[in-house]
């Protein structure tokens, strides 16, 4: 007995097969974004999606973490169509509609990275496995960013990095599932160089105090390359443990080292403590080699300036963004954030807010939450209106290229938030580099 009809021959079978295949493929063909692939934490028909905000709520970078969380909450509000919309109104090109993402309401969960890689990974894993987040984001330590980025790649969930400044994040440790809007140590060096030359000359002796982890190392290297390129000598570069608290034992040797510039490769609470203590030890009043002793903080923010108080006055550094910028995007964000919280956002808050919006926009553009397609929408994305001028999300390393600000601790603040003065807006071209110089591999789209 045969189950086939006598009239069914091989040709008919083939014809039928092609028809069935075409029929199955049709939805993918005609309906944009109807990806058949199953992926981790696919929201499917759910009415909402969940994002994970993994920030340091304790530890050396807790101040930044708190501000990042404020920014994420504001971004969620704006994405869901509440509030004044902030930078959703200025992003160009934008596919955002203010009705959530792809019509699904945005919800979020939070975690504490404790500024520790292992705790951050555990927290991110919980978000992915237990809370079912479709994307996670957060800073503020590069050690943490590198650790959770590799988790993102392993688990196939996109990580939109918050504040992370190490070259490694989008250099040797870059990942297909990791994206960084924030600038990096190389760009700080490139932006700071010409200003240092102009203000301090080419005959200087620098002493570095460096936070002993990936960010500190790469910043020290980038700044050293820049200053030595100017003709400066590096007297010494000393590594200090993250969260050292009392830096006096590291500052004392600077006094008699013959150095006339101290470069503090510290951030957050560490920078507040080391700068305060350096000033207490009278470094800023010293004359060495016939020159006024100078302190440089290559990466600093208004939050740190606030913590260090009077001590930041006149000190040079770089920042990713500052609330006093006059462009349409910055003003919209500052107004929105200020109305919500009563004070302007920090650079950490800015980058996190932007990252949340960019992810949502990429999903809208791709028409799906399927990570490989969202990644492709972000790769090479050119946009404007987010506070840093025309910006490119470079496809080769997932690093954003935009202008960088050289800032100085304001000598004569006009109000309580006016702590940093923008000295120079360094154009994107001046801080762009060849992605190959840092090596690394992005890895596959599909995991």
């Amino acid at each position: 007995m045969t189950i086939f009809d006598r009239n069914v021959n091989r040709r008919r079978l083939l014809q039928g097969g092609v028809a069935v295949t075409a029929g199955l493929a049709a939805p993918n063909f005609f309906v944009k974004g109807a990806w058949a692939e199953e992926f981790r934490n696919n929201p499917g028909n759910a009415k909402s999606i969940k994002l994970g905000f993994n920030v340091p709520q304790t530890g050396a970078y807790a101040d930044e973490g708190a501000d990042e969380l404020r920014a994420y909450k504001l971004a969620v509000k704006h994405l869901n169509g509440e509030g004044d919309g902030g930078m959703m109104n200025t992003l160009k090109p934008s596919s955002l509609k203010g009705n959530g993402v792809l019509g699904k309401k945005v919800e979020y969960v939070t975690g504490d990275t404790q500024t520790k890689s292992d705790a951050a990974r555990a927290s991110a894993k919980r978000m992915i496995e237990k809370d079912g987040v479709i994307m996670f984001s957060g800073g503020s330590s590069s050690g943490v960013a590198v650790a959770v980025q590799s988790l993102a790649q392993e688990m196939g969930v996109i990580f939109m990095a918050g504040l992370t400044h190490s070259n490694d994040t989008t250099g040797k440790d870059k990942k297909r599932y990791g994206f960084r809007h924030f600038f990096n140590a190389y760009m700080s060096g490139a932006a700071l160089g010409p200003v240092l030359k102009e203000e301090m000359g080419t005959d200087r002796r620098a002493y570095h105090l460096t936070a002993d982890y990936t960010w500190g190392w790469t910043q020290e290297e980038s700044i050293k390359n820049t200053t030595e390129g100017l003709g400066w000598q590096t007297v010494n570069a000393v590594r200090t443990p993250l969260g050292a608290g009392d830096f006096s034992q590291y500052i004392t040797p600077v006094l008699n080292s013959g150095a006339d510039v101290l470069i503090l490769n510290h951030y957050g609470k560490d920078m507040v403590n080391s700068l305060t203590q350096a000033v207490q030890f009278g470094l800023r009043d010293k004359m060495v080699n016939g020159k006024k002793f100078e302190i440089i903080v290559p990466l600093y923010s208004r939050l740190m300036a606030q913590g260090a108080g009077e001590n930041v006055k006149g000190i040079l550094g770089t920042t990713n963004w500052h609330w006093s910028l006059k462009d349409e995007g910055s003003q919209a964000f500052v107004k929105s954030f200020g109305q919500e919280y009563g004070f302007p956002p920090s650079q950490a808050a800015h980058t996190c807010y932007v990252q949340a919006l960019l992810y949502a926009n990429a999903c809208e553009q791709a028409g799906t939450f399927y990570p490989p397609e969202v990644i492709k929408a972000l790769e090479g994305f050119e946009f404007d209106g987010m506070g840093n001028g025309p910006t490119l999300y470079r496809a080769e390393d997932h690093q954003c290229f935009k202008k960088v600000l050289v800032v100085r601790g304001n000598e004569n603040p006009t109000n309580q938030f006016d702590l940093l003065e923008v000295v120079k807006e360094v154009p994107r071209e001046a801080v762009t580099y060849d992605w190959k110089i840092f090596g690394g591999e992005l890895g596959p789209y599909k995991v």
Partner: protein
Amino acid sequence: MDALVLQALNGLDKGGAYALIALGLTLIFGTLGVVNFAHGALFMLGAFCAVTMQKILTLSKQIEDTSVTFFKAFKEVPYLEIWLGDTGRMLIDYSVPIAILLTIPFMLLVGLVMERGLVQFFYKRSHAEQILVTFGLAIVIQEIIKSVFGANPIPTPAPDVVSGSADVGAWIGFGDGLYYPYWRLIYLGFSLTIIGAVFAFLRFTTFGMVVRAGMQDRETVGLLGIDVQRRFTIVFGIAAVVAGLAGMMYTPILPPDYHMGMDFLVLSFVVVVVGGMGSLEGAVLAGFLLGILQSFASMNEVKAIIPGIDQIIVYLVAVVVLQVRPRGLLGRRGVMEG
């Protein structure tokens, strides 16, 4: 040479804090036989007395900041400034020294409540159980402080007049260029004064004599009809005050956060072990000694020979001392031996 002097001063400074905490730990161990792992938390509580005083003195009225145009912003103007003008500003400036008025009674109370309310029930228990319960208490205190004041360090500056550096070089005949922060010098002087006061109290008062006798032979002193326990309870309170004052005065050097006690606790225990469990002189000697050693180990010249030595020197010394002389530098024969 200048570098050596500065590192020695740094070491003395840090040693002062270690010695003050270790002194309290030793007092409690010597009198009550309790290993108090909550002592670091007492140091932290003292620091937060300074923060509280600062908050009290800067209670503020919110006034709209019209210089901010992007959004409605408010600035805080302290009531003291509104009511008393310059005098008010000066009081705020001196909030850390003024905090002594809060720290002494508060820490005494905390010490007494801690001893009567919890620690007394663990006198007859093993050291391991004492460590567990006091460590648990330390975590509870930490979490309470975290929930009230948040997790971030709170800047608590020294008065303006002593916020700069002193020309120590000129004072000791080393010439110009040898500067050391005023507040750190004040801290060193303060810790030496407190240590001197505790020793004088134990040596020259009847109360102190009874305590010392009780430390030697509690039973015999009890047989003489003296209520040793009550005195030991007070000693616990005194130890809490000493730790609290050490923390309070440390705030301009290190902005306090809820975790600062734990950082000091571990080192202070090493100090007690190196000095000799139960030996007050040992605790002070080891405190300064380890502070100075840690400071010299941070010198670039030393680290060039043995990288990372600054991070382990204290523990290295502890290992050597425990191997060679288990009772510690000035410990009594038999304690921690055999």
